[in-house]
């Protein structure tokens, strides 16, 4: 049976190479100084080791601007992600386990909202937020992040599949209130789904670019993607002083992707199962 899979394995190796190349390049480039980066040879291999120097420069550049962005990203991702998870889990459970008038109509509306273009939402949200003086505050980023129709869909499917009605009825007959039934009986059964939704919503807030880009104007409130986007514009608009900034952008990018890769690797048992449920419907 071995030889039969040789072709398949070669294909896998080729795919791994393709999907790893940018990350590998980023890792290698992070260890180079500006000279090594622009030396014009061996972009995919090491040339001196200046990683710690670069990290030092990164965190001290412009009064530690990067560290501030990192802190902002963590705040937005956890406040937005955790809030979104709580709201979506409650709603998914409500849609899956209760019948009430208008349920299907509301759910169809929620699903249909996935098609709404980002600009169609962000532009009016910006105008509405600026009317109440919330633009350029952390709330302008956190509050809209609480909304995730896809998370509600995922939780509805997950709750329907993993929480048996009989168990809920038994708890109710024993005199447990609805909230108690939810926390004690349903929630433990939905744990893998909850962790998937938490991970996905933290990631999507961490990665969000368009919303903070429009809502925030003072750079001290920027999350990482918007901050790095700002540096890119600076670096490409001034070619002379831009060289050292490219180094910072590269090492900054590395620092921004490491936490997520670690999160996905350590939690893979959960999200692999959780994503599966969404696709089986």
């Amino acid at each position: 049976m071995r030889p039969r899979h040789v072709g398949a394995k070669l294909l896998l190796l080729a795919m791994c190479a393709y999907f790893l190349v940018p990350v590998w390049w980023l890792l290698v480039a992070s260890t180079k100084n500006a000279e090594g980066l622009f030396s014009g040879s061996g972009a995919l291999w090491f040339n001196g080791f200046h990683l710690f120097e670069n990290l030092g420069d990164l965190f001290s550049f412009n009064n530690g601007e990067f560290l501030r962005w990192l802190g902002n990203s963590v705040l937005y991702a956890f406040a937005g992600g955790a809030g979104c998870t709580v709201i979506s889990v409650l709603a998914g459970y409500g849609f899956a386990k209760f019948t009430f008038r208008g349920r299907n109509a509301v759910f169809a509306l929620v699903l249909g909202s996935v098609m709404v273009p980002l600009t169609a939402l962000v532009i009016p949200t910006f105008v509405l937020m600026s009317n109440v003086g919330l633009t350029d505050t952390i709330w302008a980023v956190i509050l809209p992040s609480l909304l995730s129709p896809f998370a509600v869909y995922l939780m509805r499917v997950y709750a329907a599949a993993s929480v048996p009605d009989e168990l809920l009825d038994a708890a109710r007959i024993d005199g447990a209130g609805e909230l108690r039934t939810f926390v004690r009986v349903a929630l433990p059964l939905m744990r893998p789904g909850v962790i998937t939704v938490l991970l996905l919503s933290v990631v999507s807030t961490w990665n969000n670019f368009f919303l903070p880009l429009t809502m925030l104007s003072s750079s001290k409130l920027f999350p990482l993607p918007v901050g790095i986007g700002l540096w890119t514009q600076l670096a490409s608009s001034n070619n002379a002083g831009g060289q050292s900034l490219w180094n910072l952008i590269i090492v900054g990018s590395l620092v921004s992707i490491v936490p997520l890769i670690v999160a996905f690797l350590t939690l893979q048992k959960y999200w692999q199962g959780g994503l599966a449920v969404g696709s089986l419907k």
Partner: protein
Amino acid sequence: MIDTHSAAPAATVVRRTKRAPSKGWLFILPFLVVFVAFLLAPLLYAGYLSLWTKGLATGTTFAGFDNYTRAFGDPSFRKGLWFVLKFSLVVIPLQIIVALVAALVLDEVTGRLARFSRLVIFLPYAVPVVLGALMWGFLYSPSFGPIEQIATAFDVRAPFLLSQGNIFYGLLNVVTWQWSGYYMIIIYAALRSIDSSIYEAARIDGAGARQIAFRIKVPMVSSALVLILIFSLIGTLQFFTEPQILGPIANGSVTPDFTPNIYAFNLAFRYAQFNYASAISFSLGFVVFLAVAIFMVATRKRGSIFT
């Protein structure tokens, strides 16, 4: 479900279903508040904005559907729309083929390499889109990217993948790299849930590995494929982040009207034309809705494959 509600057969059932409605709403309430505040209200407001027009001399006046007729006649909007439609037609099949092939291979091969590959192929999903685009932008870079260096070593000129003529392909690669792994995981999960006794039966009937893959596995994951197609269609028509990020290093290939979303963004935040920008994004929403509807009807007709 609705039948028991209206027919009310037994007393106990009636009491339970009567109690349930209000409780069900309570669980959904927090979400509904957010949904109304950050989706429905802004959307209605954008719809309202799009019906007005603001002139320097005339002030704000009611325009009816003028902004929409203007939008669909606007060469900038039409050009951007044509670009995203063309891009969708190429990138969606490409992503799905990469994801499907990877998932089929990973479903067949076991061992350390397979487990490692599964993670590596999924890895780009954990990379923020901004940084994914930026990394490829670096790799394309003529001043420090490897593509140029390799080409120089062979004494040829490398194509700059972000130039006016090549940016379509440059972006195609970025998007395929970023999303194929996510789609692969969805297909892979669907494949894993197929009862393997079906394969045994097929093998006894004389089916080879290839036949099993294309005659059994692919049709059985068709609902996952449809889901992916719809996601990727919606996402691609709203193309924004990658070209926006690569703009500054693309030497002017990314124009302010490159895609409809970029156009609407620039109209609103560069030129403060919120009314016309709202009309543009609504028109885009209409196109997305139409595309998804056409796709759903088309796949439903071929009921034997997609159900």
